[in-house]
């Protein structure tokens, strides 16, 4: 069961790296978070430790419901439908992501734990998503994907208290809120979400 969930996370990470439409990216992020929540549930059922259930509930509430709502609200405000000129476009971003995932699997070959490796891979794919896009919303989704990777890291470590889980989840929630406000302000000031224009701030 855990292996199917891990493969869903990997497939969603690779598929999200090439999506153009922000709505599809948002749905992909929600699916990825839902899979991570189910992974927590499965881990909790396997080990019988209660803090996995807490993480499951927190992930379900914040990352599957609240954060996608925030993203879609800021999409409605900024009228962003799709990204037309990306730095890494279309098929290249798929291939770069595929090669990056393969390389990180090779370099992390010493770790037998899948969750650890997949956490690393989510961080790398989130970074690629952030580097390859220009619009602020898609970069925000990239950052949130990296945070998903951090959660997977945290699950793969054995001895960690609930306090760190609370920390990660609420940090992410506040991050998403702040970025939603920032995106609203960027859009109001520049009439676009293209982050290239941010360098116009120079005097």
């Amino acid at each position, binding site marked *: 069961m855990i292996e199917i969930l891990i493969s869903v996370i990997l497939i969603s990470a690779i598929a999200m790296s090439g999506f153009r439409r922000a709505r599809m990216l948002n749905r992909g992020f929600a699916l990825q978070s839902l899979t991570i929540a189910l992974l927590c549930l499965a881990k909790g059922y396997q080990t019988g430790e209660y803090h996995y259930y807490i993480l499951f509930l927190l992930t379900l509430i914040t990352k599957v419901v609240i954060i996608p709502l925030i993203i879609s609200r800021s999409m409605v405000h900024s009228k962003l439908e799709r990204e037309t000129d990306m730095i890494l476009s279309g098929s290249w971003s*798929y291939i770069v992501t*595929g090669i990056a995932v*393969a390389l990180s699997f090779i370099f992390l070959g010493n770790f037998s734990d899948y969750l650890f490796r997949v956490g690393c891979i989510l961080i790398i794919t989130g970074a690629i998503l952030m580097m390859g896009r220009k619009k602020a919303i898609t970069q925000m989704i990239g950052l949130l994907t990296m945070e998903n990777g951090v959660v997977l890291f945290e699950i793969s470590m054995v001895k960690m208290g609930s306090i760190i889980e609370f920390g990660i989840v609420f940090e992410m929630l506040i991050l998403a809120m702040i970025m939603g406000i920032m995106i609203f302000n960027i859009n109001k000031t520049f009439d676009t979400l293209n982050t290239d224009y941010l360098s116009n701030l120079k005097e």
Partner: protein
Amino acid sequence: MKYVIYIIQSLMLLLLTPLFMGIIKNLKASIRGYEACPVLQPYYNIAKLFEKGRVLSKSSSIITLIAPTLCLCACVTAAFMVPVFFNDGNPFVGNLFIIIFLLGIVKFFITLTGLDSASAFGGMGSSRELFISMIAEPVMFLTVAFLYMETKSLNIFAINTAVAGMAGFDVANCIAAMGFAVLLVAENARMPVDNPETHLELTMIHEAMILDTSGRDLALMELSSWIKLMVFVTIFINCFFPMGMTGAVAFVPVILSFIAYILKVLVILAVISLVECSMAKFRLFRVPELLSAAFSLSLVAIVINFF
């Protein structure tokens, strides 16, 4: 006795193919809320087409005369090389490369037919088909490489036995299955790549190439493309989800395995028709993006399996 079952299973695959196509049409109609045609309609269509004569273009050569028969022959041979619902792990046919190249013969002769009638549409369709298959071929071979690394065999019967012997699902197997599913859609001209039900100019890839064939030729071409789809579906099932496959030469296990096969095919057909009803066709130049996603999925599957 087991050779009889081997022959019977492939014959069942060939005989049931138009029925599966009718089921796809029915499912799509019921999803869209249309009134569906009868499930057996493809059989009637084929029978009607076989009664009609052929009309040939003045500029067509011997290719148009022989290509439909050759396509059907290649497809039928490929159908006899895959395990359908019975496999006792003692293979004498079924090298994956032979199956791939047999299906490549079909593609080659269909594209030649499109060029041969000297119409503008046919050439356009041929060029598009080869453009797509040029990008689809690396994915196919990466998937074969993955199957070889996973099971240390290139024979589909041995692969099927080895995958059925594995406990549970593997991460690499699931990811490679996803990549192969994209490939299945692209190779068989289904929806995100090509719309199989219109003759509209913008969407034509497969239909453009067989636009100038008629009567008996058209029946053979349609049959061979249907059989090609079902052979791909059978390879998909047998290489990635071989649950319920039997190797025992007895009546009850074979019937149970047959029912399991039918159920798995129905699930895949339902997924295909759901995708076809819910997605718009991609622009032609966005198809490489889809296939490069499949490429990186198969690459990742190989690496996960190896390290």
